[in-house]
Each structure stands twice: as C-alpha cells, then as structure tokens.
C-alpha cells in the first residue's frame, strides 16, 4: 500500500543521476542512511550539487545548517565525493533576510544555493523572497522553511504554503524523510528549469524524526556562470512589469507539475481523502482499520506539490460521495476546494471541524476524523499532573541578570519591560516574571521606544546578543537619533542559546564599538558581569541608567553555560 503512495523516485532524481531505486552512491559510500528530516534535506541539497548554504538558527530548521557544517568540518558526507565538501560554503547569517540575499547572490553567480529558516524567519526574509520570484533565477535556489504547527517552540503556527502562494512560487511538501531527500534534489532541478526559487516546506515532526533514506548518486556542483546580462535581475518598474508577467506565465507549468506529482489511487466511492505532506503518514497508520471498517479502500489523492493539483482534485470529487482533507497547518487546500460557491460534494477538514483548526495533527486526530473509534487507553489516575515548563539551565546567567533588573526597577511605581525571542524569554515565567512582551525578533527595542514615546517611564528593552544582531540594531538607531528615553539591556552570552548554542554572528568584543558607532553616549554604555556575586554593584549601575534621561545600554556579559560545555568538548 505505502509504495503506491510514495513520491515517485523518477521525478526526484537529478537529470544526470539515474536513480531508480537503490543505486550505489559511489565507492564505499553507504546506499542508505538513517536521517532526521533536516539531515535528509541537507544531504539532498549536497547531493544536488549545492555550493552555498545560508541560514539563521530557528527550531525546527537549525539542524539543516548544522548538518552541512558538521560534514564540512569532517571533510566528508555520506555518499559525497570529499572534494565537494572542501568547496562547500555553509554559513550562519545575521538574520533570514541577509541569509536569503546571500543565497540569491550565489544563484546570480550560477551556483546552486539553499537558504533555510523556520516559518517566522520567512517573514523576516519576505522582501527578498517575494521579489526574487520575479527575477530569472540562474543557479538553482531552494528555500527550505520549517513550520511549527502546535508551536513547540514558536510564537505562531503560520503556514508557509500560503506565503509560497502569495509569492506565486511552487512549494514542495514531503511526507517523510525519503521524500525530503528526493524533493530537496528535485527542487534544485525545478528551480533551474523554470528559473524561479522553489520552496520546500516541512513541519516540526518531519524535521525532527528519523527514518531510513535510500541515497542516489551525488551530482557535481555548478561551475561559476554569472547570470546573463539581459536585465532580468534589475527590478525597475519597466522591467519588473515584464518579469511579473513572465512569472504569471509560468503558473501553468507549475500547475502541470503539481498535477503530475499528485497521486490518485481510486478505491471505493463512499469516501475520498486528500492527504497533504506528512498527513499521509497519519492516514497510512489508520488505513488497515479504515479498510476493515469500510469493507473497501477509500479513494486517496496524495498531494506533495503546490499550487494545488486542481484537476486531480476535481477527478477525485467526480468519483466519491464526500471528501476529507488531511493537511498540516491552515485549511489551505480545504478552503480552496470549497471556495465561495461550495464544492460539488461535501468537504470536511480543519475548517469544517472534522479536525481541529489549530495545533499539530497526529495519528489519533486523523483516526477520529476518519470516523474510527478511539483506541482504548488505560484509565486516567486521580492524581493531578502538574506541567513541567522549560526553564533556565542550572547556572544560566539570565537568571542573575533578571534578579538584578527587577531589584533596580522595584522603586518605580510603574514601568515597562519589553523583551524578545531567545532563552531569556523564559524570564516571563515564575520565579522571575520579569518581562512583559515577546512578539518577534528585535521587537523589544522598538516597543520600548514606542512605550517611552507614549509616556511610560522607565521603558526597558531586554534582548539577547544574537537577537540584537538579528534585528535589534535598526530600532536602536531610531532611539538614538530621536533621543528616546529608554534603557536597553543586552544579555550577552556570546551564543544563540535556545536553538542549541550556535555562535553569535559577531564576537562580544564588537558590541561596544558598534553601540558607540550608532551614537550611544559612551558614558551610558555600561558593561556588567552577569553573576550573582556582582549583584549589588549590578543593581546600582542598572538603577543609574534607568534614571538617565535618554538612550542608555547595559550589557550583561557571561557565557552561556551550554555553549561553554559545547566549546570545551570541541
């Protein structure tokens, strides 16, 4: 059963790498590997001949770059000629926008490039993302975006398929690790054939689960071959209008590809199921029980590529009495099927209430939506089971920083502490309860500035060093230029901690010169050691800066203890 629902291997091999089934990957290299979804994508990109990889860390996408970097350091990767590894560029960036633009430059130069990020990272990179749809992509450009339905470690559960649609770009959505590997390869070919960026959308469960992957022979990287001088990379209005038309004209080819990639397996006429991406695996998990209960197989359409395969969906609708849509994220396919005028047969899914509108899918939720009885579980005990929220690691510097900040703020009858995204967001929880907002990367500084302008005093922004480099700097430029009365606290632990301790893009020593360069008064750039033994002195300095009229910055310095452990091991 499962084999007929697999993404066809012949569509996923690179043109110069015949890869029907198990092909030895050359020399003593293994044919199969157990890979995490993120690793499968990294290896797929590598085997597709990627030359440049750029990213900003973000759960659940981080391991894509980490895998590439660890293979580069080792000088070898499964099924890859060692020479490829030496030439590979795999770099962390300040943020997703800079990462995207670097990847764009590599494509301009004719090389294959991959840029990876979490779903909210694509918001940061939205400007280059949407506009790059209009240029004539040269070296294949693949944009890997990892969505986090259920918000395991994110602030929203936006669906990247919608953003790909917004940019009028094709989006590939693998169901398992094998498809993640195959599609990463296929995406580069597609990108070069149609001269557009291709989005590869995965979700947390796929990114962070492992299974066995058959590898295909590696393809050589592209030579340096700068984009043709036909002005197709210059989006001035007159040219952009032509390029926009060109993108619109490509839609038919994107649709045709999606129709080919979709697999329709006709069974009984009672129920039709549209299974998108990983939802197919949850369907397969329940298929035997479903067949037993129906007495026949349902008709199943597997969707792995967008734009939606409308023709296949119409074909399914003509054969069945009702349709259930299984998709991770928004009811994107379901809504489109129903549209304004309704569907020719009843359509159920996340919008209709057959499945929850929010959260991550599971085999159990899909089981319920299929109308199967719940599996029997052991009776629940009577004991209340308190949750165990994440918290600061033992000895983390952030706890000491918050204790000092709270004491310095205590004399004020009111104040605002806007914060940001990172380990230090956990300071929102007891016993600290020290911060009042966490919205998006870099927002703390802008929000404190706005709060100060609106009349709040003292207005404090708390941000980590990595987040400050990511997108806190422009907000501080605004605050300095307008003399806003705020105190910025930078928690400098020299790492991006929450995602597993990646190095911050610039060393801590560069922070103070940067702040001076922006124009912060050097007398109000105070560097402190974030340790409980310095508590009294730290409270005093923070109090002084809270009282200072105008922008001031307190840098709380101490190395992340996870990072320290990691560097000792290295």
């Amino acid at each position, binding site marked *: 059963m*499962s084999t007929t629902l697999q993404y066809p291997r012949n569509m996923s091999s690179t043109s110069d790498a015949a890869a029907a089934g198990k092909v030895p990957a050359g020399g003593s290299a293994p044919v199969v590997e*157990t890979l995490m979804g993120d690793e499968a994508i990294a290896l797929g990109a590598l085997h597709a001949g990627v030359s440049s990889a750029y990213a900003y860390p973000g*759960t*659940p996408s981080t391991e894509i770059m980490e895998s590439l970097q660890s293979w580069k350091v080792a000088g070898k990767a499964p099924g890859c000629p060692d020479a490829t590894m030496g030439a590979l560029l795999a770099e962390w960036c300040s943020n997703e926008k800079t990462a995207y633009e670097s990847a764009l430059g590599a494509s301009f130069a004719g090389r294959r490039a991959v840029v990876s990020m979490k779903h909210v990272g694509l918001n940061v990179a939205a400007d280059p993302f949407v506009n790059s749809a209009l240029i004539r992509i040269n070296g294949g450009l693949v944009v890997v975006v990892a969505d986090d339905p259920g918000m*395991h*470690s994110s602030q929203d559960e936006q669906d990247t398929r919608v953003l790909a649609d917004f940019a009028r770009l094709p989006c590939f959505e693998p169901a*398992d690790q094998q498809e993640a590997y195959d599609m990463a390869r296929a995406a580069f070919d597609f990108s070069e054939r149609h001269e557009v960026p291709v989005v590869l959308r995965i979700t*947390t*469960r*796929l990114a*962070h*689960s*492992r*299974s*066995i992957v058959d590898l295909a022979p590696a393809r050589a990287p592209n030579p340096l071959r700068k984009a043709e001088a036909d002005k197709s990379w210059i989006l001035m209005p007159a040219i952009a209008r032509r390029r926009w038309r060109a993108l619109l004209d490509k839609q038919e080819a994107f649709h045709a590809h999606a129709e080919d990639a979709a697999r329709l397996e006709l069974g009984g006429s009672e129920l039709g199921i549209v299974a998108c991406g*990983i939802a197919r*695996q*949850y369907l*397969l*998990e329940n*298929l035997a029980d479903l067949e037993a209960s129906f007495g026949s197989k349902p008709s199943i359409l597997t969707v792995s590529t967008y734009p939606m395969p409308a023709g296949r969906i119409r074909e399914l609708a003509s054969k069945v009495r009702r349709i259930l849509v299984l998709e991770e994220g928004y009811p994107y396919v379901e809504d489109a099927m129903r549209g304004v005028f309704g569907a020719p047969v009843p359509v159920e899914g996340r919008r209709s209430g057959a499945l929850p509108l929010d959260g991550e899918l*599971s*085999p*159990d939720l899909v*089981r319920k939506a299929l109308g199967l009885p*719940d*599996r*029997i*579980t*052991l009776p*629940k*005990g*009577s*004991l*209340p*089971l*308190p*949750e*165990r*929220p*994440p*918290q*600061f*690691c033992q000895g983390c510097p952030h706890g000491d920083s918050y204790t000092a900040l709270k004491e310095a703020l205590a004399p004020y009858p009111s104040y605002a502490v806007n914060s940001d995204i990172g*380990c230090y967001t*956990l300071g929102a929880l007891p016993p600290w309860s020290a911060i009042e907002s966490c919205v998006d990367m870099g927002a703390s500084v802008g929000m404190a500035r706005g709060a100060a302008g609106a009349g709040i005093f003292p207005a404090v922004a708390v941000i980590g060093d990595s987040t400050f480099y990511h997108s806190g700097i422009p907000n501080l430029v605004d605050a300095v230029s307008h003399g806003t009365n705020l105190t910025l606290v930078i928690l400098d632990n020299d790492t991006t901690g*929450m*995602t*597993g301790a990646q190095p911050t893009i610039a060393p801590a020593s560069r922070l103070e010169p940067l702040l001076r360069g922006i124009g912060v008064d050097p007398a109000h750039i105070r560097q402190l050691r974030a340790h409980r033994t310095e508590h009294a002195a730290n409270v005093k300095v923070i109090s002084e800066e809270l009282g200072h009229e105008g922008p001031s910055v307190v840098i709380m310095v101490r190395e992340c203890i996870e990072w320290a452990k990691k560097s000792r091991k290295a």
Partner: protein
Amino acid sequence: MNYDMILCGVGGQGGISVSVVVAKAAMAEGFRVKQSEIHGMAQRGGEVLAHLRISDGEPASPSIPVGAADLVISFEPLEALRNARWLSVERGTLVSGISPYKNIPDYPDIEAVLGELRALPRVLLVDADSLAREAGNVRAANMVLVGLASTLMPISVARLEEETAAYFERKGKAVVDANIVAFRKGRDAGK
C-alpha cells in the same frame, strides 16, 4: 512485527541518547526504525518525549498513536505517569525509575505517584539512580532502565551492549564500562 516504544523524562536525563542506542541496535538486528523527538524549548528542564518505532515493515507515522505503545521507558516517575496514556491496554509495559526530578514547585507526593504507577497492569520500577551509582556513574541511570526493559524488547542483549559501547566510545573506556555495567544491573533487576 511492530514494536512501539516511548522514551520520556526531563531534559538532560539522556532520553535522546537511549533512543539512538536502541534504534541502532534494532537496525543491526535487521529491523526498520522510525524515531521522533521534540527538542528546542523542551531541552531546558521541560518534559522530553521520544517515539521509537521498530518494525520489519515500514512504520507509517513518525509518532505512535495513543494507546498503542508496547513499552514506555521513563527516567522519572511523574513523567512515567504522564505518559502512561501511550501504553497499549492489552500488552503495554511501563518501565520507570523511582527518583523524582523536582524542578517544579507543585510536584505531587512521590508515594502517591509511585502508588498510581504500581496500579498499572504491567509495570517494572527500579531504583535506577542507586544501581547507576553502584555501576560507577550516576549519569548511566538511563542505561539501567534500558537494561531492565531489554528483557521485553525484540532485540538481543549482545546488540544492545554493542551499540551502547559504540555510542559512548568517544567518552572513554570508563564511561563505556559504567554504562555496560549499568545496563547489566538493570537487566538483572528484572530477573
């Protein structure tokens, strides 16, 4: 053959390493595996949950359905209770350590927790910390539990010990030995 197991505990207790060791041993036995875990914020002293599916076919879903697990290994009693819902009513066994990991203010009375665990249809409890200490490394408590659970898994002891040794090899002989001894102590505790 399908064998589904859940590994759970608190971030930092070694759940992920155990999942890797058992998965590798299962593959060495010729099985296909699927593994799933949630990391990120969960690493920071929060609940950790890993799914491991062992099969001679191809497991479909990376996550195990509720009420379907053959085995739940928990490194901590409260997490054991929290994750008992994964157990199959007909065949599921719970294997858990008895030492509470108290990093929350409202941790329930430990005797009450252990009482509810003992009331489950098939349960093996062990003082994993003490046995690991006896083995020479308190951090090997996770391997005590794997040893205890090995009496139930469709994987040979030799394979599990081989993969344990391979996993800890880079940390030196003392660590390897302590983990193997811990594994055997756990296994003996089940006899």
